């Protein structure tokens, strides 16, 4: 079973990631078991899927947090995708899910983000990291979570900016 980094440890990935289909996203057939599905599929099939507890959703970088903001806490897992590591929209989406919509479940980075983004992602509220690249060395990558231990800005992990904490 593939692994991922969660809350600073390397653990089994028990959720299946469902990619966007070639065709109609609304008509995607959602398999049984713990699955993370595209937000478009969720929105289209909400009526039938909402009884399932084993549904997670993922937002692509051009999907707004608002799409699921109000109901975020019904999901155990929400994914934020990085189609390319340079596409930084999901940093904002992650913060919005945590700070504006109060999401408390697993917030998982998925896709092509890189190890060197882990610290900033953690600061934006992401607590799980499923690298698309299967060759990523997770033991090494986990070290980058702590690239910084002190910060100027307020963010999810440290809600007070340095100027409110400075002795």
């Amino acid at each position, binding site marked *: 079973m593939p692994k991922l980094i969660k809350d600073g440890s390397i653990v089994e990935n028990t959720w299946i990631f469902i990619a966007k289909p070639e065709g109609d996203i609304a008509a995607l057939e959602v398999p049984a078991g713990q699955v993370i599905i595209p937000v478009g599929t969720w929105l289209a099939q909400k009526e039938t899927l909402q009884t399932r507890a084993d549904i997670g959703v993922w937002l692509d970088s051009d999907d*707004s947090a608002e799409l699921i903001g109000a109901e975020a806490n019904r999901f155990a897992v929400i994914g934020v995708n990085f189609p390319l*590591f*340079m*596409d*930084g*929209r999901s*940093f*904002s*989406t992650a*913060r919005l899910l945590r700070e*504006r919509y109060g999401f408390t479940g697993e917030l998982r980075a998925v896709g092509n983000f*890189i190890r*060197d*983004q882990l*610290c*900033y*992602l953690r*600061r*934006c509220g992401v607590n799980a990291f499923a690298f698309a690249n299967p060759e990523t060395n997770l033991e090494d990558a986990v070290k*980058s979570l702590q*690239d*910084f*231990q*002190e*910060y*100027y*800005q*307020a*963010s999810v992990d440290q*809600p*007070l*900016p*340095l*100027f*409110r904490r*400075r002795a």
Partner: protein
Amino acid sequence: MYIYDEYDNSILRQRIAQFRGQTERFLAGELPPEQFLPLRLQNGLYVQRLAPMLRINVPYGMINSTQIRKLAHIARFYDKGYCHVSTRQNIQYNWPDLTEVPDILSELADVGMHGTQSSGNCIRNTTSDQFAGVAPDEIIDPRPYCEIIRQWSSFHPEFAFLPRKFKIAVTGSTRDRAAVQVHDIGLQVVFNDKGEVGFKVFVGGGLGRTPVIGVAIRNFLPEEDLLSYLEAILRVYNLYGRRDNKYKARIKILVRALTPEVFAQKVEDEWQHLKDGSNKLTRTEIERAKGFFTAPAYETIDNSAAQAVVDAQAADSVAFSKWLQRNVREHKIPGYAAVTLSLKPTGVAPGDITDSQLEIIANLADEFSFSEARTTHEQNIVLADVKKTELFNLWQKAKAAGFATPNIGTITDIICCPGGDFCSLANAKSIPIAEAIQRQFDDLDYVYDLGDIDLNISGCMNACGHHHVGHIGILGVDKAGKEFYQVQLGGSASNDASLGDVLGPSFSAEDMPTVIQKLVDVYLVNRTQEELFIDTYRRIGAAPFKEKVYAKAN
């Protein structure tokens, strides 16, 4: 100026450790070049035509003599004995060895300097007025706000992978010397009618391929809301700015696509969620920041007595009087003056400075200006707090070191990017054009008679030489593999900001000095007594200039 405390130092050390690790992984082949690219850029490291280029931030242009000596040491020990003052008040080294960059950054950190976010798609070094704190026309000193922005923007976790680079400039004077209307965000510190401090906020200005003058989206933002409002703008940009085409990714394109009204509304909506959060500035923090920019230990000086001394010295020396006229400015404190050391003598690439010259500047700063200096976006160095009675002494020392060319603000005080001699983006060389024009205008009396003329040269449309806002702007273009130069007239980076108009077909390098001479001739023939070049151009338009320059030879 701002002094790093244990927090600033520890954050900077963590950054250097991070970058050292990244460099090692790159050199070991564990970090692919395309992933290392944005990481090295965000630490100031470019890979250029001939060698890497390392850009070191000078936050809003403020630098002290200890830092200048460190820059000299880096130039001597790690580079070829010189560096370059950029058009955004930063310092650039052209020949560092990639493997030594972490060591260079570590040495710089010893004096509170770094290359963090001096490049890449992130929030860049905030720029400001080189006469901040000393200009007689200043309303409020912008530097405490610049420092507050520096801290907020450094290592911001949400905004390190923006659609494109992002530049903020702040001015606090009546006359804008920071060109705030050609920045992604321009802030003008103002008082409202109740006497409270705040900002007029411009967005969407910029040069580059699509030059645009910024639009004001808020006429008064209370000072305590500075960071929450900036965060709202950046979030809207990060989420909605275009990412499909790097040439359409700057915030100016988004502002134009949405219309300024809709953009402003989106920012307003986002800000409503953020404005009462923990980013709201406290009185304590604003006062703490202001505490770093208090007046130095000025002496009480009788200004008219001091001026009499200077006047007598000037009467004895024409050269000194010329220098006073061009390179010395009024100061808000009686008996003091602000001096600009020219880095534009003919024959030296504009903004270039050697290791030993840096050390001389450090000594001059210690002797004459409370150990501080400022870099300017016109690529010169300012000693901001010089006693008038010391001007003659300073002038002699500056002259001996080659910094006393009395050309500040004139046609030979050229803003110029490194161009095709160094930069891999450039279409054409820019430094030799600057030199040829300086040689054309080698008669100082003639140059003085021309008055203030901003002549700006960029080697490509990325516009690092700010050619769009030069009274005369020159742009290097490539035509079938040959270098040509397009001329623009009528730009301005001041309060009356405007973009230059293209004159017509481009010229060869050899023609450029004559072309500029003809433009100046048209001005001389048409000007009224009070008019500067830009005024005459605005009054008579492009036609007479075109006629002269493109006239068929008889």
